[in-house]
């Protein structure tokens, strides 16, 4: 069916997100170089915090400080980063459970090469120099021995 026409279609939107109080406090802290989590009624600490306990839907409004270092619970390697991802050079995606947190967060680990990645390794947050109040203010995690 070579006579079928094809044409590009560009989907482009500048979505604007309003954060609400809980996400707003997390992003404000992040912009200021700190990490916080949300404490649920059962005492679990959710990082990044949601306005609700993911298990029950109950409101979460108490925010508590958490460490800026933690443990990689799983990871994969991205050899060719796509536009918009945290790093332009090859990096790892990882779930990182920060010290003091009961859930893990998704972010990039700037490890240089996959051989330096290992489940259970410790990593520490590296903040961008210029921060604006988005999750990308956390540029990446770094393997702890190298940070």
């Amino acid at each position, binding site marked *: 069916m070579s006579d079928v*026409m094809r044409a590009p279609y560009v989907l482009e939107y*500048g979505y604007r997100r*309003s954060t*609400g109080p809980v996400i707003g406090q997390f992003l404000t802290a992040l912009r200021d170089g700190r990490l916080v989590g949300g404490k649920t009624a059962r005492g679990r600490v959710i990082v990044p915090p949601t306005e609700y306990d993911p298990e029950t839907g109950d409101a979460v409004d108490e925010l508590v400080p958490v460490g800026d270092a933690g443990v990689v619970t799983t990871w994969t390697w991205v050899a060719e980063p796509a536009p918009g991802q945290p790093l332009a050079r090859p990096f790892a995606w990882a779930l990182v459970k920060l010290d003091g947190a009961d859930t893990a967060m998704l972010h990039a680990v700037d490890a240089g090469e996959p051989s330096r990645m290992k489940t259970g390794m410790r990593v520490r947050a590296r903040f961008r120099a210029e921060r604006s109040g988005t999750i990308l203010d956390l540029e990446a995690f770094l393997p702890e021995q190298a940070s």
Partner: protein
Amino acid sequence: MNRCAVIGIGQTRHAAKRDDVSLAGLVREAALRALADAGLGFSDIDAVVIGKAPDTFEGVMMPELYLADALGAVGKPMMRVHTAGSVGGSTAIVAAHLVQAGVHKRVLTVAFEKQSESEAMWALSPKFPFQPPLLAGAGGYFAPLVRSYIRRSGAPPEVGIKVSVKDRKNALKNPYAHLLLPDISDEVVEKSPMLWDPIRYLETCPSSDGAAAMVLAAEDSLGGVTNPAWVLASEVRSEPTMFAGRDQVNPRAGRDCAKALYAGAGITEPRRQIDVAEVYVPFSWFEPMWMENLGFAPENEGWRLTLDGATSMTGDLPINPSGGVLSTNPIGASGMIRFAEAAMQVRGTAGAHQVDGAKIAMGHAYGGASQFFAMWLVGRDKP
């Protein structure tokens, strides 16, 4: 089929921009109010059914996935309905089916739109290849239909103005309504800019952020709720966007849907037996058009109901006591607000816009090119 009733209703404060909340915060505002109204918590709910219009409005693909925990759905069935503008109504109907089919005892249903996350006008009119050029936006589609209606019915030109003034005055009595225009008058509407001739600016709906939620329950699971709104009947009908000879002004899908709805509830004289209706009127002229489509007036005479005052708060068939879509339009939620407001009327909880003694109320939604219809009838008395 098991009986089903509305036992909890919640709405957000609707506004052009709800910059104070996240998407989850918006839907939770409605959901938590509905639960509080029913005297329940998330743990009392068996399933969640969520609806909204296109995902491109907020740029979240299948947002029910992200919203599952915000709505206490973890460990439960969750569904996401999308039937264009009728979706708020269709979503409530899917939720009611879960109860009526005996699958669940209590279902939370939520519909929302946060149009300020993008520009909805833009989202509705992207340059998509190979399609006929979109030259006039949403009003450009519906304005020719209004012109056709006026030509066919011989309606006088002030009908659209009268509907607008009525709905905007009603909205002043609704604490959740978005657009509040206390100084509204025939003259103000008439002098507002003619956007898509014959449709004026004040004869169109706003673009809103908002959500609505309801708790639907089986007869044996009403809890402490003593004023449930019983679902007497619900119906959906769809027809193609366009075909040769299609009547776009008075679409058959809407007529068939209403007929089946009345038959299901044992209604033989809808004008007399239905006390109040919340009808999806995004452009004021759609009130008379839908009056005919719903069988409340003979063909080409729907406008007389408006001019005679029958559709006003003091008339015999008040239409849109809430102020309707003309006053509040979070697209995906607009249909559910109609369904919820109908339930509020028969529960006697509509406050300042309550129609005294309402026993049977209709909720109506439509979408697409006037091609998707969803309706329900709710009653104060158990069927």
